[in-house]
């Protein structure tokens, strides 16, 4: 990528994350995931797509199309909704420490 992209690439990779949703104690029910953006680190605030929440809506997906509804509070989803956010490693180590190598990681030749 050209140099003009360096700030955008840095911002994108630092703020990109994955959000996954599942039912507490019911792994067999499956999980849903999408991408997201960390809009604030302290406190940690993430914007992601709403599609992964439709299976958890108490009133069903119809509540998304009710006239005049622009938002739904978090408790619109069932109590057994469990969310996890995963992001990448920091772009640079602020402490400057050498990082430990991951044991057992190798690249076998095919």
């Amino acid at each position, binding site marked *: 990528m050209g140099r003009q992209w360096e700030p955008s690439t840095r911002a994108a990779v630092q703020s*990109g994350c994955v959000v996954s949703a599942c039912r507490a104690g019911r792994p067999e029910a499956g999980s849903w995931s999408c*991408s997201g953006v960390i809009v604030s680190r302290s406190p940690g605030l993430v914007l992601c*797509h709403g599609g992964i929440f439709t299976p958890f809506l108490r009133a069903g997906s119809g509540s998304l199309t009710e006239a005049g509804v622009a938002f739904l509070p978090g408790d619109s989803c069932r109590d057994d909704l469990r969310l*996890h956010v*995963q992001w990448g*490693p920091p772009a640079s180590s602020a*402490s400057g420490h050498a*990082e430990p190598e991951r044991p057992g990681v190798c690249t076998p030749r095919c």
Partner: protein
Amino acid sequence: AGPEPPTRAAGRPRPRPPPRPAELLLLLSCPAFRAHFARLFGAEAAEQWHFANSAPHDELSEEEEEDQLRALGWFALLRVPPGGETPPELERAPAAAVAVAPLGTVPKGAPLLACGSPFGAFCPDIFLNTLSRGVLSNVAGPLLLTDARCLPGTEGGGVFAARPAGALVALVAAPLCWKAREWVGLTLLCAAAPLLRAARAAAHRLRCPEASALAALLPPEAGSPRGSPLPDLGPPWAAAAVLVECGTVWGSGVAVAPRLVLTCRHVAPREASKVLVHSATPKSVAVWGHVVFATQEVCPYDIAVVSLEEDLDGVPTPVPAEHFHEGDPVSVVGFGVFGQACGPSVTSGILSAVVQVEDAPVMLQTTCAVHGGSSGGPLFSNRSGDLLGIVASNTRDNNTGAAYPHLNFSVPITVLQPALQRYSQTGDLSGLRELDRAADPVRVVWRLQRPLPDVPRSKL
């Protein structure tokens, strides 16, 4: 504008923090996005459009597809509580909050960088934060379209601008769009600024005081202009594209002189027929004209020339290119997909092939996404802004019915320019009529046939 490998810092891979639990604060939608979505994709056209994460022929229950459609314009604000096993350097990461581009500050045609994780949480070691580049193809309020290629699972991913550097422009609403069972090759986005505004407003209305405090911490718009947003300037050459309406048929065209528009024969096929030409930039106007020349049905060059009754005020006349360089970055501007419902779309790519006959270019191929309705639209060089050609078609596999928007064919402007100049100066159509006498090898090229073998001459 294809998917590119994830950018990784040089050296050893850094350990990825483990997934962190989060809580849902609210689900939100941007009302203006929903209104524009309903206008562009709703009504009669609704049956033609699909935004599913799978191809239209894949099995997806009606209920699942309905759910996806209902949730398309919805996003979620989550909170990640502090603690856990987060490495301390992440907590101290410099990017405390993203910068957000105000709506309207990124013009059509501007380069964009999409960052998402294809297939969501599947194999983050490989797919987390994969980058893809493209341009801002079209704008309808907070509903944006990009030709950066995105995949299922990138919904919610951020789309960033090169200018303002690193500013968050939008979030992916639907990575894949299908119209009439054909992949359109554009990704649907919701602008970030109005979405965050909606989040702030919603948080204040929640009964939870904590949520209201968090709303104050949502990132503001960077360098927000006072009053109305900046006008959508875009590249100056993009304004040369016009919409051409001939009876019930419509397509695109390009103004090559104040009263002269070039389009395709299959858009305006009959000489002397009346044509209505709409320009979108700098202002929306419609001017009547008539077809002064259209190539014959058997002519390989699918071209028509329209003479207008009035000047197209303010519409720039592009400079015709004299040379073509394979691999050069190019853009197609056309009214494909949306027609009059929205301004012209800009799609980016490279000049992938210049097909020559006897050392003269007779066909241009590009990797830009080209859709039905783009025919007649201009192909521009991104480097010089020169007009390279006129889009004539994209590609369809007759065996499978699949369309390929990223392989398309244009008539080089060098084929047309001498005749157009002669007509502009003298009104003489004879140069244009010469196009109907294109040599057989040119016909073979445009029929996508193999070159004719050299036939041995008879000695008789």
